[in-house]
């Protein structure tokens, strides 16, 4: 047991060290690499806390997709540095930002440390009613049944984020396609990886969504894996990013929240409450909602990463 505790302590110290390294890293690209490593280590911490669902989300979203977004931002900042001469932040302003960050971190640490040893928990109630949802994974039950409204709003936020990214487009490119036009020759190594990995990844993504009803996994994690597969196919230039005016793309983006909301309204009509599911029929409804959420997440995340429309495409 001492050995396991020593490993946990080592893991904790490593997370702290990589976090500090990320903060003090030179340049945005190095900091991004540090941040991705930090996220992966953090998902190991979640596994040690037996929160496999959170670990999967941290690895896929916290480390993977956020890492990609930050790398894209770092690359764009590097391009901007060579063209425009922006003044770097002044010393006092940097100090003020650092002080504010330290203050927030200290406040969060204080809140965590001040929690009573047996903090208030809804875990027993959540397990008690698990059978009524027909699910085996309490995390999925919390997300899609107990606090369904919150989860639905989170999906709406994702759609708003895509609208926000698209709004950065210049007027003449509105409705066009994001990213550069397809290169003449795709990078052969990356194309090979995309061809081999994408079919496997799609299988794994659908599997993670499907087992999420009873075991760790779920719509978000499965959708993120599918999104990664689409992104790798686009990066390998095997397929181009679609025009943002495409009808199928826009339908896929809103399918998740729309079906979720429709199921909630149907609950008000047929099951006696907004977002109530009919008894004995809850699991099929939940999986139906989740299937459309997977689709929306798999389309939303690549659209966030590819950025605003930057070229015109013919309709």
């Amino acid at each position: 047991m001492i050995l396991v505790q020593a490993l946990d302590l080592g893991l904790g110290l490593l997370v702290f060290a990589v976090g500090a390294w990320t903060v003090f890293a030179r340049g945005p690209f190095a900091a991004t690499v540090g941040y991705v490593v930090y996220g992966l280590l953090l998902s190991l911490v979640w596994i040690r806390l037996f929160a496999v669902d959170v670990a999967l989300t941290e690895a896929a979203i916290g480390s993977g997709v956020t890492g990609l977004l930050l790398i894209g931002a770092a690359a764009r900042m590097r391009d901007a540095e060579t063209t425009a001469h922006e003044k770097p932040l002044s010393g006092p302003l940097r100090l003020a930002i650092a002080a504010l960050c330290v203050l927030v971190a200290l406040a969060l640490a204080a809140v965590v440390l001040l929690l009573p040893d047996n903090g208030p928990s809804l875990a027993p109630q959540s397990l008690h009613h698990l059978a009524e949802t027909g699910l085996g994974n309490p995390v999925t039950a919390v997300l899609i049944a107990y606090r369904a409204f919150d989860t639905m709003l989170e999906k709406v936020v994702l759609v708003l984020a895509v609208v926000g990214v698209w709004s950065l487009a210049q007027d003449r490119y509105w409705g066009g396609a994001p990213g550069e036009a397809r290169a003449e020759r795709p990078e052969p190594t990356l194309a090979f990886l995309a061809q081999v990995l994408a079919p496997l990844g799609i299988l794994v993504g659908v599997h993670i969504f499907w087992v999420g009803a009873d075991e760790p996994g779920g719509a978000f994690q499965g959708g993120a894996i599918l999104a990664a597969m689409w992104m790798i196919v686009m990066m390998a230039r095997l397929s181009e990013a679609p025009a943002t005016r495409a009808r199928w793309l826009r339908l896929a983006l809103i399918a998740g929240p729309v079906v979720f909301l429709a199921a909630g309204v149907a609950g008000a009509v047929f099951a006696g409450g907004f977002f109530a599911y009919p008894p004995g029929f809850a699991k099929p409804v939940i999986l139906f909602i989740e299937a459309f959420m997977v689709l929306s997440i798999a389309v939303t995340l690549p659209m966030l990463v590819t950025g605003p429309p930057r070229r015109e495409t013919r309709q």
Partner: protein
Amino acid sequence: MSLLVDIFSVIAISAGVFFYLAGTVGLLRFPDTLSRLHALTKADNLGLGLVVLGLLPRAGSPLAALKLLAIWALVQLASATTAQLIGRAVRRKGRVA
């Protein structure tokens, strides 16, 4: 029998950890990007392969064992591709030395 399996696991996983250690030393000590890549990919493939080999007899079911092998194969694919991509990028920039 179970003692033999335990000994096998300990030897295989220790050997795997040794390759990780050797790869990390190479990453820190080797002079240029291409030789560092060389150290890293060899360590990843052999190190992870031996760790997976040591874990195989402990996987509860054939399906779990198959998943372990799939993880090894996927990491092989990813690390080989990344090594190629970084190597190409280095060559294109002409900073081989």
